[in-house]
């Protein structure tokens, strides 16, 4: 790529953070964002000019988020150093905490498909490449995720949004 990386951060920083928030919750999202953009900066000179920069960033964020999720699963039961760790879900004191709870309860594939389609706006064909599997499977995972969110999240803030 031959465009200044600054423009990539300006153009995609917001959407990548929102994707990370859906994947990991607000707290871990910040670490994932930082690792994603640092890795992207490192690899950027080798990115072909024809590449879809946003899909590329989302792919990196996907891998970073998986690392975080794996690390979480390896974590033993709470140890004494972190007795009062705040929840990793949602923004503290956020009225949408219930939504984050519902997003976090989704199976990984559904949460990822929801993030990449509804937040990043990627087409299902791109999402299929990131998740592995078919375009139809990616579409189904996103649809199932949204259905489940509607069922489990009874908050008032259900509004229309562009697909």
């Amino acid at each position, binding site marked *: 790529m031959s465009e200044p990386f600054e423009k990539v951060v300006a153009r995609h920083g917001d959407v990548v953070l929102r994707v990370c928030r859906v994947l990991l919750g607000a707290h871990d999202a910040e670490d994932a964002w930082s690792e994603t953009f640092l890795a992207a900066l490192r690899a950027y000179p080798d990115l072909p000019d024809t590449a879809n920069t946003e899909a590329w960033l989302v792919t990196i964020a996907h891998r970073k988020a998986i690392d975080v999720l794996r690390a979480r699963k390896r974590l033993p039961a709470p140890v004494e150093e972190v007795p009062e760790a705040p929840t990793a879900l949602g923004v503290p004191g956020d009225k949408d905490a219930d939504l984050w709870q519902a997003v976090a309860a989704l199976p990984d594939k559904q949460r990822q498909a929801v993030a990449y389609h509804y937040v990043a706006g990627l087409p299902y064909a791109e999402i299929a490449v990131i998740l592995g599997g078919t375009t139809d499977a990616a579409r189904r995972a996103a649809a199932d995720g*949204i259905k489940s969110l509607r069922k489990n999240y009874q908050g008032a803030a259900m509004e229309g949004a562009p697909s």
Partner: protein
Amino acid sequence: MNVIPDYLTSPSDAGTLARLRAGLERAAEAEGLLDVAYTTVDSPVGPLLLAATPKGLVRVAYDIEDHDRVLNTLAQRLSPRVLRAPKRLDAAARELDEYFGGRRQAFDLPLDLSLSRGFRQLVQRHLPEIGYGQTRTYGQVAALVGNPKAVRAVGTACATNPLPLVVPCHRVLPASGGPGRYVGGQEAKVTLLTLEAG
């Protein structure tokens, strides 16, 4: 199927993004990935773009050069790892401020001359020998670099100087009189010559 929680698509908090952006700048510098750092500063000759590699100041650009275009060129010629990172430009910004305030007559900054080559770079290396408040003609500079016939090439070297102000091409004038052309525009050249004559 389009009904989804509004919160998922609402923009991130600007303060959070600014904090993350600042963290990226620090991490990039620490990891040696900040190939080109830049900032913009205000000055009596308009907004100036300052850019530096790890070696030193590599570009000073006037507004009329179009800062976006200059950044694109830096990305193509040096590295696309270009980030707004004012810290690396602190010393350059301070020395320019002192210069415009009449408190500095020479710049003491590490320079990266890798944007120019050959004869042009040779000329640019010699330009700082023209002291504050002095001027030379293009012909005199050609003689200074040991090639008295290369008057036109000296003109090109001045016109393509990647470090105006710091490498003082504004002190080179046509023998026929008048301020002559300048990368920052004739008005800027007159402003600088007037400042230095003060």
